[in-house]
């Protein structure tokens, strides 16, 4: 590698100055949207600790961090090996510009941000991961797994491109078995039937709280801003799962109270919007922010940093070790609505269901530049929405703030479109 592409101390200093400021300003904007529940604050503190104060994750001292990407690395297995999975998919604009030097121009900004953090070594939550488990999903993630190995020991995890047949799940099951000794070597702890069952319980508990939370999230009028909701879900990446679940329980209690008191944060005529598409990872929350700043209610999301990763619990039918492993292999492929799978019609079914459950009036389809797999599915989604008479708009964006005004006008016009449509319906 040439001399100029090596990171020096001064560059790291400037990086820290800029990236912490960007993160702080997005946290501030998200908090300012509407009165935040008190119990949501600890989640914001976690994001602040991670991205502004640049502190390591708060967790038991003997618990190692294992980096993960995407939604296919079973958290249960990592916890069973005595470590904590830290999701390293990032939305950092500053890390993206660093990664730009190492990743081809047309690759998506998310992989550039991950590579940027790998190179800059300024984010303890990232740097303290002793290992990275990288599912081989889309082309960008596949090649990232290859190049990031130079800065962080990486285990590529093969994901079957098909998921319908048992044979596909078998392939993934073998991969998970292959992962066990690698994790054990890293943590020095054994994955046993007991620890695996505990892992499944811990994550299941968080998913239970999540399903309770979604009941409050979908309330009309809204009990909490959707951008704040997405921040809470983003904080999952940087919190031990039992702490996240505990705090989530408190948040649910508070939302229940809000519901009882009729404490709402939206009005009746604000369009209810679902956002789906490419990952929305902190601090890249400009699309959710714009939706709500322009008068929409972000009532649901079908994204992998949001509801997708958290809503489906592992169901164990056979409690033997192999039975639990099979349940994991099945949970992390079959219901997964990531567009890397050849046939992903489930995603459309799921979104249709969400539109019904959450009283959605319009869909914003987020495409990160270079994110082909999501763009592929836009046409299918548009056809399906057309049949349901649900307006949909595709917004393409990148990890920078230069396109905010272009995005704003599109999102504003989209919200007006829904308002006028509803007014007509009433008349």
């Amino acid at each position, binding site marked *: 590698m040439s001399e100029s592409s090596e990171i020096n101390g001064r560059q790291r200093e400037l990086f820290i100055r800029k990236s912490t400021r960007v993160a702080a300003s997005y946290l501030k904007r998200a908090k300012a949207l509407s009165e935040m529940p008190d119990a949501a604050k600890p989640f914001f503190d976690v994001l602040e600790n991670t991205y502004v104060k640049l502190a390591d994750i708060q967790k038991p001292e003997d618990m190692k961090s294992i980096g993960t990407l995407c939604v296919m690395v079973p958290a249960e297995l990592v916890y069973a090996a005595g470590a904590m999975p830290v999701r390293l998919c990032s939305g950092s604009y500053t890390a993206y510009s660093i990664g730009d030097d190492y990743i081809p121009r047309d690759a998506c900004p998310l992989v550039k941000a991950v590579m940027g953090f790998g190179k800059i070594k300024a984010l303890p939550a990232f740097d303290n991961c002793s290992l990275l488990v990288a599912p081989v999903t889309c082309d960008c993630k596949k090649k990232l797994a290859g190049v990031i190995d130079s800065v962080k020991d990486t285990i590529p995890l093969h994901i079957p491109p098909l998921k319908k047949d048992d044979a596909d799940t078998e392939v993934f099951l073998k991969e998970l078995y292959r992962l066990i000794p690698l994790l054990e070597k890293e943590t020095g702890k054994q994955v046993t039937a007991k620890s695996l069952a505990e892992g499944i319980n811990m994550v299941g508990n968080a998913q239970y709280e999540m399903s309770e939370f979604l009941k409050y999230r979908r309330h009309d009028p809204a009990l909490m801003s959707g951008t704040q909701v997405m921040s809470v879900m983003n904080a999952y990446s940087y919190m031990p799962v039992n702490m996240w679940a505990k705090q989530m329980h408190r948040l649910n209690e508070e939302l229940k109270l809000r519901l009882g008191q009729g404490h709402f944060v939206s009005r009746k005529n604000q369009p209810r919007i679902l956002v789906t598409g490419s990952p929305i990872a902190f601090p890249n929350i400009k699309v959710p922010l714009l939706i709500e700043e322009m008068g929409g209610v972000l009532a649901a999301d079908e994204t992998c940093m949001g509801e997708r990763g958290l809503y489906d619990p592992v169901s164990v039918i056979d409690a033997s070790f192999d039975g639990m492993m099979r349940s994991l292999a099945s949970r992390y492929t079959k219901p997964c609505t990531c567009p890397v799978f050849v046939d992903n019609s489930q995603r459309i079914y799921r979104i249709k269901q969400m539109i019904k459950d959450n009283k959605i009036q319009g869909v914003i389809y987020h495409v990160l530049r270079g994110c082909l797999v999501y763009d592929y599915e836009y046409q299918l989604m*548009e056809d399906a929405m057309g049949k349901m008479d649900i*307006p*949909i*708009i595709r917004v*393409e964006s990148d990890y920078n703030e*230069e*396109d905010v005004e*272009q995005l704003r*006008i*599109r999102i*504003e*016009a989209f919200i*007006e*479109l829904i*308002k*006028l*449509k509803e*007014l*007509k319906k009433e008349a």
Partner: protein
Amino acid sequence: MEKYYLGLDGGSTYLKAALMKDKKVVGTVVYPTGIDNNGVAKKIVAALCKKYGISRTDIGYIMATGYSRKILEVADDDISEITAHAYGVRVTAPQGYRPGMVIDIGGQDSKIIYLDANYNVKNFTMNDKCAAGTGKFMEVIAQILETTIDQVGPLSLESTAPCDINSTCVVFAQSEVISLVARKVDRRDILAGMHLSMAKRIIKMMKKSEKGGDILMTGGGALNTGIHRAFEEEMLKDVYVAKYPQFNGAVGAALIASERGGI
């Protein structure tokens, strides 16, 4: 007495105003935007009141649109350009035509808006942060060819052999045009080539799945007969130009104000 309604369209290059009464356009004015959007807007309101012998209280509602819509203090409310243009064509579409697709060519952006049979917006697409395919592009090229923006259309219609302009960027296209000039290519052919290249670029934004209705051009760019013809030749379809195309956004804003005030 029926009130007057005023639409203000604060674009990147010009500030346009349309005064309406009984859903008909009473008068229009256009001023260069300059650096003081707000001051220009005030001047426009005063000028219109004077010209039509009305006072500010005769105007029931002022609706702003366009890129400076949020900062015009004289306005009661604002709406996005997309909604404004979609509304405007209810009044500006030539008699007997029902627009299904609106091509708006503004100073700094161009957009395609798809309408259903009741003039409701179905979908829309806009160009990104790039001046290619916008009015600014025409201005830059007109300057190089030592002509004015109102002459580029008529001149290009005289072309018999439009030349190819391949650059997709204004800056590159500019140097491409300069090299064509250096090779003594007839400027009418250059202009015709420029219009075809602009049309091609905008057509790329169109969605093939959206069909039905007439195609209507709006925005200051629609005043250019050359680009109008280029669209017809590239799409192999009839394309119509709205009445007062440059004021379509302002007309739409005034119309929506008269129907329901703010939304």
